[in-house]
Every structure is written in C-alpha cells, then in structure tokens.
C-alpha cells in the first residue's frame, strides 16, 4: 500500500485537485480513494487495463460524486444562475484556479477546442454526450476531439 501510494499518490492527487479545486477536500478524497482501492483490490482485473487507469477512474468518480453532492448542498441560493452559466463558469474557474494552484497545464498546449472537450470529460465529470450537448456539437465530433487530444498527448509523452 505504501509503495502504491508513493508511486501514484501524487499523480492521483493532481487529478483530484483539478476536479475539486480545493486542496483539503482533494487530500480527503485521496485518502478515500486509497481506502477504496484497498478494499476493492480484488476487483481489479489486469487483463482489462493498467492499474493506474483503474485507480484514476476510482479517484475521478469519487471526486466528481463529491463535487456534485457538495454543489447540490450549497445550491440553495444561486441554483438558477449556476445552472445557466455552469459550463462557462466552471471553465473560467478552472483556468483561474490552475494558475492559483501553480499547476502545469499541458492541456493548454492543445488547441482550445481540443482542451475544452478533454477538460470537460476528464475533469468536470461530463459524459461525452453531455459535453456534446453543452458545446452544441455532434456526438461524433466530441469523440473525435477527445481522441485527437489524447493523440496529441501521446506525441508529447513519447
């Protein structure tokens, strides 16, 4: 468990932090992620994918679920406004907070239309269908953009 934490803890915290924008909450969620990994370890199937992918999806799902439940709780006053401007607001916040937290953002090196989609799906908990609707794009275009974005990433890391 220690080895797993040392190897992937920071990477997972990076993902969670990008989603939650809140250090303390992100660290809580990181703990929660590792507890879940610990207790669900037998569910991991190496033939279906890499360990990190499995862990990352656990972390992302926990973070997004938390964010949604938190948003829901705090939504009392400004629900209407938030609903209307959610997408734009989130994106704005994202950029500001990334700067505040001093994160390196490789996605920004992508064309905006590619980074937009990847951000939404990867960090904001949108399904690709929801992203397509929000961006008013055909589903196929969203899929292609996600693929292209990741192909770009692959080029950078190869």
């Amino acid at each position: 468990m220690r080895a797993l934490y040392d190897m992937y803890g920071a990477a997972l915290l990076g993902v969670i932090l990008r989603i939650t924008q809140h250090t303390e909450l992100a660290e809580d969620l990181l703990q929660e992620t590792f507890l879940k990994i610990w207790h669900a370890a037998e569910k991991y199937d190496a033939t279906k994918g890499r360990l990190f992918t499995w862990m990352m999806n656990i972390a992302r799902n926990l973070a997004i679920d938390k964010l949604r439940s938190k948003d829901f709780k705090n939504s009392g006053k400004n629900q209407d406004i938030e609903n209307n401007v959610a997408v734009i607001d989130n994106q704005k916040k994202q950029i500001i907070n990334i700067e505040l937290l001093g994160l390196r953002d490789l996605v920004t090196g992508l064309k905006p239309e590619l980074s937009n989609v990847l951000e939404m799906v990867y960090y904001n908990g949108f399904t690709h269908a929801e992203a397509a609707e929000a961006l008013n794009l055909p589903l196929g275009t969203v899929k292609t953009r996600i693929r292209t974005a990741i192909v770009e990433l692959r080029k950078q890391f190869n």
Partner: protein
Amino acid sequence: MEEHKAYIESGILELYVLGQLSAPEMLEVERMAASAPEIKRELEAIEIALEAYAIENAVDPRENLFNELEAKLNPVQQTSFSIQPPPPVRVEQRSNKSLIYALAACVGLLVVSGIALINAHVELGKAQQQIIALRTETDRYAKGMNVLKQTNTELQTVADMIDDPNWAIVQLAGTRTSPASKMMVYWNRKSQDVVLDKSRMKLPENDQAHQYQLWALVGGKPVDLGVFDVKTDSAQILLRMKEIPNAEAFAVTLEKRGGSVNPTMDQMVVFAGVSI
C-alpha cells in the same frame, strides 16, 4: 485490419479508458482488445499517455497524509468517509458482552444437560441390570420354593408313613464291597408300595454307564424292583419303586444302565433282611 483501424479511429478506446462507456460497451471493447493485438496496443498507448499526463500534473500530498491513511486502514470499521456518525460503540460492546455471557450460559447449560443425560443413561443401565438380577433371584426363589414345597410334601408323607403301621421301615446296611453304604426302604405290606428314602441314603454316586438296581428276595429268589440313580444334587427325597407283595430281604446291586435280569452278587452294596 481496415475494420480495426476504423474502430480505433472512432475514439471509443479513449472513452473506454476515461470510464465513459456503459457496461455492454465496455465488454465490447474488452472483447475486441482480446481478439485484436493492435487494438490492445492502442488501448495501452492511450492508458500510458493519460498516466504520463497525470504523473506530469502530479501534486505532492502533505507529508503526514499517508500516516492518517494508515490509521484509517487499520481500524476495520472505516471503509469510507461517510457522514454517518460512528456507531455507539459502548452499547455494541455491552450487547456483545451480554451476547458472550448468553453464549457462555448456553454452553454451560448444554454441558450440564449433557452430563445429566449421561448420568441418567448410566443409572438406567444400572436399574436394568438390577431388574434382571432381581428377576433371576425371583426365579431362583420360585424354584427353591417349589423344591421346598415338594420336600415338605414328601417329608409329610414320610411322617405319615411312620405313623401308619402298614409301612415297614427296612434299614439296609453296607456289604463287604461297600461297607460305608447304607439305605432306607419303606415297604407297605398292605398296598405293596416300595419307596426309597434318598435323604437317608448313603451310596457312592453312580456313573453314566451304571445304575443301582433294587432287588427283593422272595422265596430265595431275587425279584427286580427297578433301577435308580444316586446324585448328590437331586432334591427328590422319596423314590417310588415297583410294587412287591412279599419280601424276605432287600438288596441293591450296581448293574449296567437299565438294570439286569439277575443281580451281579459281587456288586451288592447294601442288604437287609426284613424283620417281622
């Protein structure tokens, strides 16, 4: 090949890695990856890219975070940060304790019942043995009672015979062959009955091949009066022999089993003349 390329180009593999697919769609991707190595390779490349991307954007957690995590891993209860208040531990412990007491009491009761059952079983066995022993004893007494009754009847008969003047009591004495022997014969001259008194008989026990034979001497000739056995364990006292109207003497010889026509004189054990 072309088909696989189109599949890869569709972007579904990226969605798979990002956890965006439904369960049936995931199964489909897994099936494709298992059958086509190029799809498997593409999938891995996407995973590695996203992994590298995440590592590139890693943020170190605060230092003691792992220690906190470890503390949560060890107590088994806390699997998640659920908002539910921790269960009332004390009450649970108490109920656990009382459960343990109850269990202990049950086990104790079981042991006691078990012992009681075994005891009862042993006692029952003993009682059955006692019943069998008592029954045997009762049988023995009943037999003894019959013997006594018979003996009593016969003794009464003897007593009656002595009172009756028709009965002659003939004492037979041992001969040279068997000096220690003696015997008593009751003879009723009127009814001609001849009865032996075994209680006053002193003869050596005969074996399986031989029997004693009683003779009466009538006009100097021996007349067979029947055979008898001498056994120490016999309860019978009186032994009725053949009738004889007249006799000058009585004698007993040891003959082959079943008796002989004429007495074997050197095997005569007792003899007595009848005194009138």
